[in-house]
């Protein structure tokens, strides 16, 4: 966006007013209900709203809402590769790109892709790639082995919360205990394969293992919803012969 030279610039160093708000002690006690009423230590995933085919321009698109998180995704292609010097001409290639809009977070983000965005793009790439039959390329249509689903948990001491909200994910617990961290797992349900795994924080190996299992459970919970949405979109786009 071109810089508006007539605009009066603000001070060079500016800070978000959220820093100066008196933060109420939002960190909830380790036991007890979560802020939105869901249960702890249980696979209690937020309800999800999914629709496909919203972006008419794209080959495929989807919109998802979970809690206050809203996401749009578009798929373009297949198209010719630009980098002709790639030696790997035998199979197709997947490019992923993920961005936060500047108004999406608590503090205004920037237009340029930051490191967090790049990181998530990479993760997305790694998680999606196993599911695609890229070797079947260059035939039309993109075949996939399975849908890729993902779930994350947040470990806080001995209890965990599944599908954490923003507050739960970023709150620094006052209790300095052993197991603290987060885990995200991308899963292919019908093949029982984990295509993506990421954790941070400080956890023991057992906690990790248990967490992975919990995430897999969570994925199974969403699976039918996604399947239903996909079927619906397909049916609308190309109605079955019996109905026409």
């Amino acid at each position: 966006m071109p810089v508006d030279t007539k605009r009066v610039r603000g001070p060079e160093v500016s800070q978000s007013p959220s820093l100066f708000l008196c933060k109420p002690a939002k960190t909830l006690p380790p036991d007890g209900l979560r802020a939105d009423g869901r249960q702890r230590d249980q696979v209690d995933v937020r309800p999800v709203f999914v629709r496909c085919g919203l972006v008419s321009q794209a080959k495929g698109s989807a919109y998802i809402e979970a809690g206050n998180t809203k996401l749009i995704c578009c798929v373009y292609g297949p198209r010719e590769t630009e980098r002709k010097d790639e030696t790997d001409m035998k199979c197709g290639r997947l490019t992923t790109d993920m961005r936060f809009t500047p108004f999406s977070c608590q503090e205004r983000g920037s237009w340029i892709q930051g490191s967090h965005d790049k990181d998530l793009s990479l993760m997305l790439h790694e998680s999606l790639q196993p599911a695609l039959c890229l070797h079947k390329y260059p035939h039309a249509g993109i075949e996939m082995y399975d849908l890729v689903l993902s779930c994350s948990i947040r470990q806080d001491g001995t209890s965990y919360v599944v599908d954490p909200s923003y507050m739960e994910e970023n709150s620094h617990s006052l209790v300095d205990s052993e197991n603290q961290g987060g885990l995200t797992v991308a899963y292919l349900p019908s093949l029982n394969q984990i295509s993506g795994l990421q954790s941070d924080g400080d956890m023991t190996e057992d906690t990790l293992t248990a967490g992975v299992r919990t995430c897999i459970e969570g994925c199974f919970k969403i699976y039918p919803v996604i399947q239903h949405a996909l079927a619906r979109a397909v049916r609308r786009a190309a109605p079955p012969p019996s109905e026409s």
Partner: protein
Amino acid sequence: MATVQVSEAEKVYILHGIRDDLRVDGRGCEDYRHMEIETDVVSNTDGSSKVTLGHTVVLVGIKTEIGKPRPMVPDEGYLDFFVDCSANATPEFEGRGGEELGTELSNTLYRAFNNKHSLDLKSLCISPGEHCWVLYVDVLLLQCDGNLYDAISIAIKAALFNTKIPRVHISADDEGGREIELSDDPYDCVRLNVENVPCIVTLCKVGHRHVVDATLQEKACSVASLIMSVTHRGTVTCTRKVGGGSLDPESIFEMTEAGKRVGKALHAPLMKLLQQEESLGRKKQKVGFLS
């Protein structure tokens, strides 16, 4: 990562060998290659180290500077990672080619250190909200022969151990402004406690088994790897799956366990070695880059 072309036959050969716990260069599945560590190689930095793991060579330099703490955490200092994949390592890294890989490595490092326990960030604070120590960790890849994550993490741990932060104290002058005063003794410095600094272990899934410290050929045969960052107590600070393939949950559990075992075992000899080197003090023979 630099790629190597492996033919199908070679792949099969490697796979079969690993199945029998026998790798091409004769190691076991959970053995590391020959590792050499040297600290204090770059005199301009406040801490530095050079690690040679097989043919992978990594150089880490740490510079300390006084900066402003992050607004959300005014009483802590912080680390700033930067990984530079120089064209020295492979021609693919020429120009901006290595940037992607560098970003990936930096991000992983951030996540590995993003917990309360790795480094005591509160000790890096000089005056809350105003001054804190910022440690700029710069990693330079000199030669690339697989298993970058492990080499980098070991080098970082050694460099942090070697870092000498000058001792400062803040004095308030008459108007209330703060003056930073340095002690003029060059030996008067603060050392960091690197006990809890994690080490990264990369486990590559080759066939049905996993190997630690894969060479480039072995990497070419694997579909996916798991990167784990393990502390000396056995806690896992960061895990990540890399690679274009998918993994079985069971194998993930196996690999986690193996990684924890290997990682835990890595720390003790490393610390011992570092302390030994430190105790040599001035008499240490500097080997440098020409060895």
